[in-house]
């Protein structure tokens, strides 16, 4: 479904991705690991055309999206459901209005139907009591839950993209988010999650990519990752031991 072909990207003079190539299939559960500033979020933004690569091709279902206009990208973007770090809820809208936003933009539903669907989605994540709340009144975990529901409100995406879905959350909230992600992917549809929390990545994914210095220094399954001798990966794996021992 997603194919990166020698993709390079830089922010001004700072090279982030260098000749990156990989492909991901529709039902895969992929975790992209790496340190801050190594280009994890950039990869997600490139997939949905929010950023354009300096060179290389990005193919979505065999279609090169690198030269597409914003209008043409609309058809590509509805194949994905993207959840940004911190949820990116609209501050000026209530929780229900946030979930209703894509329904209003994409569907011809009546106000009554939109209201019913938004409430139903929020009930699914235990937030039916918070429908009238503003985003500033929610905790970090609630933010993410609303954002996940909003991202899948209007259409059925083929794949989910999660940007640091559990970062900054307490263990209980992180657990709730992980369960929600697994629950959603259990109904079909793979996902890519970028994270630096290896413990959560292990709970969720079955393929792991490790970014370093603009390239992928590891791409493989759980057992291979655990046996890796790459120093950067070993540092990440220490978190697993801490969690396990704890």
């Amino acid at each position: 479904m997603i194919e990166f072909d020698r993709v390079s990207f830089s922010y001004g003079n700072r090279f982030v991705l260098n000749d990156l190539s990989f492909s991901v299939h529709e039902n895969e559960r992929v975790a992209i690991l790496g340190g801050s500033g190594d280009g994890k979020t950039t990869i997600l933004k490139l997939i949905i055309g929010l950023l354009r690569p300096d060179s290389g091709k990005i193919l979505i279902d065999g279609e090169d999206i690198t030269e597409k206009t914003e209008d043409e990208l609309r058809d590509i973007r509805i194949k994905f459901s993207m959840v940004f770090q911190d949820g990116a809820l609209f501050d000026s809208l209530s929780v229900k209005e946030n979930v209703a936003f894509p329904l209003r933009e994409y569907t011809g539903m009546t106000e009554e139907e939109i209201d019913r669907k938004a409430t139903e989605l929020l009930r699914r994540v235990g937030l039916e009591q918070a429908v009238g709340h503003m985003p500033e009144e929610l905790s970090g975990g609630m933010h993410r839950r609303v954002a996940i529901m909003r991202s899948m409100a209007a259409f059925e995406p083929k794949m989910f993209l999660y940007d640091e879905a559990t970062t900054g959350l307490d263990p209980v909230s992180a657990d709730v988010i992980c369960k929600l992600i697994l629950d959603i992917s259990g109904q079909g549809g793979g996902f890519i999650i970028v994270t630096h929390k290896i413990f959560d990545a292990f709970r969720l994914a079955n393929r792991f990519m490790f970014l370093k210095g603009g390239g992928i220094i590891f791409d493989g399954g759980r057992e291979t990752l655990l046996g890796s001798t790459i120093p950067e990966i070993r540092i990440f794996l220490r978190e697993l031991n801490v969690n396990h021992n704890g």
Partner: protein
Amino acid sequence: METLQKRIKELIGNLQDFYLLSYQGGAGMLRRPFYFRDMIEQMDYAGSGSLVIIVLISLFIGMALSLQLSAELSRLGMKMYTGKIVGISIIREIGPVLTGLVFAGRVGSGMASELGSMVLGHQVDTLRVFGVDPVKKLVTPRILSAILMLPVLTIIGDCVSLLGAYYIAVFVSHQSGTFFWSSIRDILIYENVLAGSIKPFIFGSLIACISCYMGLSTKGGAIGLRRTTTRAVVVSFIAIIVADFILTRVLLYVLGFSV
């Protein structure tokens, strides 16, 4: 030399982006979908939210101007011209510029910081992911609301300034109230009213375009947001003053005033 070249290139690039955003924001008024709800919200924020401060500032400026002129003109024995001079100054010049500056300080800074925080919080990216054009959704309603509300606020500000000037002229400087108002009526001719009413439309569009551009190009966290807001206000102030001079020159020429 290399740094200078880089800066010039950057400036040209920024100007290009600014014109493009202003064009797309303006063109958005003619293309579907129309975000009426957003426009009404913005009009409420820009209009009723700024009313009190504009009334207050206009009142005191009108009173101060009347005081200054009364004092100076009475020395020359021409106190009766206070109404006329105050009226022309307020309607043609001070009213539109003052209201524009206050609008830029309050509404322009608000627009820049709101859009800036939306950029930093990935809310603008979220709009794009949902297939919503951020320029149409965020910039067009703000340009429209500024173009519609600034003239209204200017008229209100002008009226309040004149009331303040009247109060000082009549109750402090002991001039004839009837003569004051008849002087004002005399200067309410087509040329003066046109000169005073074109400016707010131009100032409004300038403030909204500059503030939206600054807001949408925010980078670098809280410090970046602070920089964006400050820049939006400073650039809007400069743009208003420069545009005011150019408009005054053009309008005087077009309306047949000799300088």
